[in-house]
């Protein structure tokens, strides 16, 4: 059963998709469709743990950023006692938007409509004409801002609209092992470098989430300039090598690409490698030291990529790390946030070099970003075309591939890196949410 209001056609498509994904088929229509968008809003984003912000975006008391879960605007703020809070960005009096800025610093929020004042942690404290107007009828304690349940992992702040949702720990389900490559670069962990790049794209969020669940397949073609000009230390001949790992039934997946002969931890400064040898587990070191590219997604729409990239063609690469949020705002339409994550303990020189490499590749005008969105926007367009409504795409790569028996990390790992294995898990998890009973 899907939500009331879902047409029979879409209900049938989702029912058929259950078997279809196992056989390696996914319908094109899911990538650009109003009913699917509505179902995702009501059944997926209303229950999943969704990324809100990185702790380093709100380092000081009163720092806040405004973020979204589905169509809900949320203030993420560090209060006057240093604790992180998330509240709906809405005045409780008549529903006015509280913060209009995307980021700022405030000890109290004062509504621009009738002037109600809240502590930045959300409690209502000030009401104009409280005595004269309300005559003791208003209990301020009952009319604070609406709290959003949050939890954190290694600096990432997630929120969920579902009070019954399992813990974030359970939700991540072992994927933390792989997230550490992005979040524990060096002993002090990672921090954002500058504010995020933020723009609107005519692309369905799921195309991006899938791509970042380990689509190493597109890289030598879509990003061939990187290979040919010597920016990117991989070659078409060996690019399929590496691992693809996913967490079954959780939707999270990562591709870990290898370059034969590449020195361990290539592209990191030596002192960080030393620190990581102390702060990562032996299993993590075994996986991460061999990894050239780690491209992974936390279900549903938060992704990461770490890889070396040369600022000058032919020169040794610099490791950069990007974190991105693919936020749906309509069928085939999304708002994009893209951050550069740097190791907190690295030198300023290294942070700058990593930020440059990030900007050259995955900033809004970055070369990789342009290559990807060109393709993704056309995929989105095709998926919304009438003749494509009943068309399936093949997801059969690696269908018979055996699970690696001796892989050191958690989850379901296969080799080589080029495979649809992670994507089949992504789509069956997505389907679980969309067809779940209310």
């Amino acid at each position, binding site marked *: 059963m899907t939500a009331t209001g879902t047409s029979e056609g879409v209900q049938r498509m989702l029912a058929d998709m259950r078997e279809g994904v196992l056989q390696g088929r996914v319908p094109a229509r899911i990538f650009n469709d109003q009913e699917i968008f509505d179902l995702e809003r009501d059944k997926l984003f209303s229950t999943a743990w969704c990324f809100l912000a990185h702790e380093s975006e709100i*380092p*000081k*008391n009163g*720092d806040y950023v405004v973020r979204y879960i589905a169509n809900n605007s949320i203030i993420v703020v*560090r209060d*006057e*006692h*240093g604790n992180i809070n998330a509240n709906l960005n809405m005045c409780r009096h008549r529903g006015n938007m509280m*913060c*209009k*800025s995307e980021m*700022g*610093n*405030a*000890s*109290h*929020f*004062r509504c621009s409509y009738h*002037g*109600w*004042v809240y*502590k930045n942690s959300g409690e209502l*404290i*000030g*009401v*104009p004409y*409280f005595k004269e107007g309300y005559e003791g009828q208003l209990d301020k304690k009952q009319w604070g801002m609406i709290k959003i349940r949050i939890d954190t992992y290694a600096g990432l702040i997630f929120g969920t609209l579902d009070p019954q949702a399992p813990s974030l720990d359970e939700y991540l389900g072992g994927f933390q092992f792989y997230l550490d490559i992005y979040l524990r670069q060096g002993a002090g962990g990672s921090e954002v470098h500058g504010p995020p790049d933020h723009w609107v794209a005519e692309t369905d969020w799921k195309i991006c989430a899938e791509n970042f669940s380990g689509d190493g397949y597109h890289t030598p073609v879509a990003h061939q300039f990187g290979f040919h000009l010597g920016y990117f230390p991989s070659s078409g001949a060996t690019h399929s090598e590496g691992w693809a790992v996913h967490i079954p039934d959780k939707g999270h997946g990562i591709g870990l690409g290898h370059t034969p002969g590449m020195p361990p931890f290539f592209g990191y400064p030596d002192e960080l490698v030393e620190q990581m040898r102390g702060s990562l587990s032996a299993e993590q070191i075994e996986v991460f030291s061999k990894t050239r590219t780690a491209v992974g997604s936390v279900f549903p729409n938060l992704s990461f990529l770490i890889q070396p990239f040369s600022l000058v063609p032919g020169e040794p690469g610099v490791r950069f790390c990007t974190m991105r949020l693919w936020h749906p705002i309509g069928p085939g339409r999304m708002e994009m946030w893209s951050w550069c994550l740097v190791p907190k303990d690295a030198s300023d020189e290294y942070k700058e070099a990593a930020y440059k490499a990030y900007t050259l590749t995955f900033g809004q005008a970055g070369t990789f970003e342009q290559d990807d969105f060109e393709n993704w926007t056309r995929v989105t367009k095709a998926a919304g075309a009438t003749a494509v409504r009943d068309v399936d795409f093949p997801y059969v790569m690696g269908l018979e591939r055996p699970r690696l028996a001796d892989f050191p990390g958690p989850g379901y790992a296969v080799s080589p890196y080029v495979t649809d294995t992670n994507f089949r898990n992504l789509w069956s998890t997505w389907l679980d949410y969309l067809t779940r009973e209310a």
Partner: protein
Amino acid sequence: MDEDSSEHGTAEQWPAGGALLDEVPRDGGVEGPIVIANEFADVVVTRVHTRNGVRLDIWSPRRGTRVQLDAVELDCLSYQEPETFTEMLERKPGG
């Protein structure tokens, strides 16, 4: 911590990491007015001289209000809990 400071709370009781306590002022703002603004309010802060001393002038142009605080009053502000300001806003939330 010595005996005296305990009545104002020890250093450990103050919010640590996020509380700006570790920031050394780099700009005293003596060249001109300092504007402190966020999306909820804006004030202009200046140092004003009397014949015999100095005060800090806080001016809220949108509201049209103004106050001059001397060193003792400012010192007193420096050891208030955040709740003190909440109480002030509770009494006079402003429009």
